[in-house]
């Protein structure tokens, strides 16, 4: 399988990429690591006029500590999160989430910005970013704006990123959570999580339980009211709309969400620190 005929342009730097986005919008499709886009193009599930390759925009590949937040550039590859000392010190959940992605080959190519823009409802890194209350920076030639990670995705594959914008950075507020947990349930080897949960202090986020990654507000409310882990976890699938497909039934996904939330909350209890 090869993609249909396509035009290709590699952006020399961010300024050029943004100028082209302003001028050509949807005619151009950003290409970062290609780990979601290329499979889609090969299967002809997606059609693109011109690929705008962001892969060499070195200025967007970084991890930086900026006092009240940890900034991660959009072109930072997953693999970097596994070994970066700043990630390890300030936002270790990002390393745990990145380690859950695919395999080393995918992690050597896939990027933080690509994962956010792809808006997959079961994606690992975006789940961690929602739990950590991170903010996504969207840039255009007109300037930048910030969107909470929890609001970026509006449906599978759809985000608030406009055709003239690019995802350029994600900011994780500091200090990070005192207690956190990241738990997934996946079928063996390579399989994406059926359901995954990330807990950061009082925030609980779920992947695989609806068209976008979401906060489990019922669980959070129960915890805020002083409920125990078991009672809070029982509300995990409130307001959720998991799919019913060949990989798992909706009922099974609901069950998984309650079990995983219970385990993640137990991880965060005072006796057991992650």
């Amino acid at each position, binding site marked *: 399988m090869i993609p*249909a005929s396509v*035009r290709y342009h590699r952006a020399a730097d961010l300024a050029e990429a943004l100028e*082209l986005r302003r001028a050509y919008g949807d005619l151009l499709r950003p290409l970062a690591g*290609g780990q979601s886009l*290329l499979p889609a193009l090969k299967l002809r599930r997606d059609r693109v006029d011109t690929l705008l390759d962001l892969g060499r925009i070195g200025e967007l590949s970084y991890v930086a500590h900026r006092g009240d937040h940890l900034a991660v550039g959009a072109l930072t590859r997953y693999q970097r999160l596994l070994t970066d000392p700043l990630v390890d010190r300030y936002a270790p959940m990002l390393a745990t989430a990145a380690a859950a992605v695919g395999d080393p080959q995918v992690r050597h190519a896939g990027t933080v910005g690509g994962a956010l823009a792809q808006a997959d409802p079961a994606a690992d890194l975006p789940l961690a970013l929602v739990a950590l209350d991170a903010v996504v920076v969207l840039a255009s030639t007109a300037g930048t704006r910030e969107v909470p990670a929890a609001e970026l995705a509006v449906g599978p594959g759809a985000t608030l990123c406009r055709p003239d914008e690019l995802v350029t950075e994600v900011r994780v507020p500091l200090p990070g959570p005192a207690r956190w947990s990241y738990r997934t349930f996946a079928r063996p080897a390579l399989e994406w999580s059926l359901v995954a949960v990330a807990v950061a202090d009082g925030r609980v986020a779920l992947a695989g339980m609806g068209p976008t990654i979401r906060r489990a507000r019922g669980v959070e409310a129960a915890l805020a009211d002083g409920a125990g882990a078991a009672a809070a976890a029982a509300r995990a699938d409130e307001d959720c709309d998991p799919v019913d497909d060949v990989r798992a039934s909706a009922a099974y996904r609901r069950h998984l969400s309650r079990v995983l939330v219970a385990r993640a909350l137990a991880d965060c209890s005072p006796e057991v620190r992650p």
Partner: protein
Amino acid sequence: MTVDARPGTEAVTVTTTVNGRADSRQVPARTLLVHLLREELGLTATTVGCDTSSCGACTVLLDGRSVKSCTLLAAQADGADVRTAEGLADGDRLHPVQEAFREHHALQCGFCTPGMVLAVVSLLDENPGPLTEHDVRRALVGNLCRCTGYHNIVRAVLALDAARQAG
């Protein structure tokens, strides 16, 4: 900056160093890296198993790191150093990872082997170890083998790691 012409072309020039040899050629933009290697350069050690980025048979090293060449455009490798299984041995002397695979009988039909060996080269290069059996199995999760049952592959990698830990 002003943009006057519509950006992009259907043909791209891809300049690479493959197994130490410089190469530059024009290919259609949609050309996958694996097709550049196999069909343009005639380097057929890199195999295509699943063609859906699941099996790892097409694994090559891009600037020293394992990637699946069925899921990258040749254009994305422009300017990069590419290594395939053909580029591992030094004349008649096998690369240490190849030698360990031979020693531990870590291959049968050999279809997965080029990708498997390159995934191991990347692993040993980026992880100083010591490696546990679990580390090795997790690092090779993207490389499927239908013959060996993996045990001898894992043994080969653990032996390599033990040897380098011993100095």
